[in-house]
């Protein structure tokens, strides 16, 4: 997937320049609440359950200060991504045990048109493996600053 295509799945209403959460549960909840507030998912409890089960499968804290909580749920109709940043960092039980600063929550429906869910996850991992991108994301304070980092401009 092209990064210019990836950026279409973000939206300003799902963007938190500085998260309040201080714990893993809090971080998952704060991001999930964006989807609820924007009425992008119908049932918070079902998606909460799915996200917890996903963490049972293995932490979505992939290391280097990044977490990508994700999953398919029947309670969503489209693929959406929320972004949140924590300057202080949050213990997310990441694979390298380091605090997480950059959070990308990806929620997808059971079917998705064009099978874009896995390519989205793959492209996100590629973008976030680049230290320069991570460093730039740590400095973002607005959605307008965020978009060019994702598109690679």
């Amino acid at each position, binding site marked *: 997937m092209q990064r210019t295509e990836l950026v279409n799945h973000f939206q300003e209403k799902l963007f938190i320049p500085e998260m309040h959460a201080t714990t893993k549960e809090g971080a998952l909840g704060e991001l999930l609440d964006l989807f609820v507030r924007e009425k992008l998912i119908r049932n918070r409890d079902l998606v909460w359950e799915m996200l917890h089960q996903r963490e049972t499968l293995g932490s979505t804290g992939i290391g280097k200060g990044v977490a990508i909580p994700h999953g398919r749920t029947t309670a969503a109709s489209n693929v959406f991504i929320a972004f949140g940043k924590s300057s202080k960092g949050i213990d997310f039980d990441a694979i390298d045990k380091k605090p997480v600063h950059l959070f990308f929550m990806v929620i997808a429906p059971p079917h998705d048109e064009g099978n874009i869910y*896995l390519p989205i996850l793959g492209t996100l991992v590629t973008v976030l493996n680049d230290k320069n991108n991570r460093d730039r994301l740590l400095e973002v304070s607005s959605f307008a600053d965020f978009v060019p980092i994702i598109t690679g401009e």
Partner: protein
Amino acid sequence: MFKKDLEQLVSLQDLDLMIEEAVEVEKLGFSVTGYNELKTAREELAHVITKPLLFRYERLRAKLKRAIVPVKNDVCLGCFLRQPTSLGAKGREDDQIFTCENCGRMLYWLD
């Protein structure tokens, strides 16, 4: 039949989708060390769902891959056929589980 049944089925399907895609997700660089724990959670959830409903779910999954699909703006997101508006009103409120007349999947209204 209660909405709780439908919600348990939704959770079961969410787990099945996660298990199904675990290998592909691992290839992308994610940790999937808890695969067996997830399978156990799936079996425990399946155990509390009434047998006829679970059988119906499993049969649909085997045939169509997705047994329950969201409905958005009265459209079944499994086959993209528009559902009767009257069905939507019942589907949102009633305790009954409704199916798409076209594809046969169980429906879960999102709006």
